[in-house]
């Protein structure tokens, strides 16, 4: 049972309208540009998927990747910690026009909520955001003399990730700081789809060096020379 897909478009072909999609990466590092663009291609061709909820640390930059998804009108809601970037016009415009919703989550809480979803932990307590407006309406509790906020897990229907090495068993490694949210999102989505720069046979990754065990990965597609979001933004590329 190989998990590899024959094409990028095939890998994302069944993502329906109204899906919640986690997208790996922090800024351009570890961002699965080709998978996102395949989804945009599908939307332009078929009008689907639309009304998406997208979970990422940011809300897109420039005119490619998540920014292009937003600009295309596929995104109903962003869940992120930092929707600012050097060029967040796509999000800002839609947000200020009330055409896209925003759930703002502190970065560590965002990471932990995603990890909790993957780990079967429906709720946990964190000191983060206690006493701030981002904790409004959330249960609080004192432990050992300190106050904490209760946060819920955050699940998704799909995760789109960028790995570096992948093998047929679904095992993944990441490149440098491109790891970031990717291994967490792999655990938290019903269907996890990863593009990898090198796809090898089962066993081509040392078991001690695997970062995401294959159990968390449903589909793999090789993109041998992936685009780097930051480079595209700096070149002014518009997708």
């Amino acid at each position, binding site marked *: *049972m190989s998990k590899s897909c024959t094409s990028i478009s095939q890998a994302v072909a069944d993502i329906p309208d109204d899906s919640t999609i986690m997208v790996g990466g922090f800024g351009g590092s570890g961002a699965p540009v080709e998978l996102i663009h395949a989804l945009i291609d599908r939307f332009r061709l078929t009008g689907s998927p639309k009304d998406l909820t997208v979970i990422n640390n940011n809300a897109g930059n420039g005119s490619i990747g998540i920014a292009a998804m937003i600009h295309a009108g596929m995104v109903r809601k962003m869940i992120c910690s930092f929707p600012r970037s050097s060029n967040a016009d796509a999000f800002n415009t839609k947000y200020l026009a009330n055409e896209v919703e925003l759930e703002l989550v502190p970065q560590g809480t965002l990471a932990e909520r995603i*990890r909790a*979803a*993957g*780990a*079967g*932990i429906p709720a946990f307590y964190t000191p983060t955001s206690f006493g701030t407006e981002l904790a409004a309406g959330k249960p609080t509790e004192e432990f050992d003399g300190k106050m904490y906020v209760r946060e819920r897990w955050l699940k998704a229907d799909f995760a789109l990730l960028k790995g570096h090495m992948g*093998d*047929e*068993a679904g*095992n993944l490694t990441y490149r440098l700081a491109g790891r970031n949210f990717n291994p967490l999102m792999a*655990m938290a989505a019903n269907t996890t789809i990863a593009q990898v720069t090198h796809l090898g*046979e*089962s*066993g081509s*990754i040392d*078991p*001690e060096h*695997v970062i995401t*065990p*294959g*159990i*968390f990965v449903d589909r793999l597609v090789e993109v041998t020379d992936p685009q780097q979001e930051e480079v595209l933004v700096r070149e002014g590329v518009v997708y």
Partner: protein
Amino acid sequence: MSDFNLMEDKLPNAKIAWRAAQDLSDGSYVNLGIGFPEMIAKFQPEGRAVTYHTENGVLGFGKAPDIGDEDWDLINAGKKAITLNQGASLFHHADSFAMVRGGHLDLAVLGAYQVAQNGDLANWSVGAKGVPAVGGAMDLVHGAKNVAIVTDHVTKRGEPKLLERCTLPLTGIGCVTRIYSSLAVIDVVDAHFVLREKLPEISIDQLQSVTGAELHLDGNVGDLIVPEDI
């Protein structure tokens, strides 16, 4: 039928394990409990790829090494030496139980002292004095998508292990989905035992007489037939 001798004609553990193994799905991730359930791997049907998980942080382990070839840093949850298959991965205990609790395993197979018709399981403590030990059983029963039990249908003294309710300390409530016993294959559906298969030699009445809760029927009851050479 009336000449069925419960204690002599019931399936031995190896045959129960064989039957359980027939339901292993291609591409599935499976945790086999320490002891009897581990035997299931031996009977994995050809042509199906199954990836085995063990609580202490290994996915994709294979056969035991030959005696003398053990590397005692590479063991399973039962502390037995194992080997790694191609595509294996290693990880720490929190990640390992994230796989368990997070619903990533397709199947966990455990032993049982008692199973109740509502899916309650007792398999960790006989409630008596002595030293209690729980291990990962309480995590497994609430994590895997399916929780199957392999067990003798009755205790050594012939008493039912499948009951209306468990009397021993519980491992988990409402968690068991299927039971492979020495006499039958039984599903837990809506807090009832539903009989799926039974040994051809035993009548439903006789099976019911050694079962501590009502057996429901839902369509045909299949024959539980295991090759002689197992």
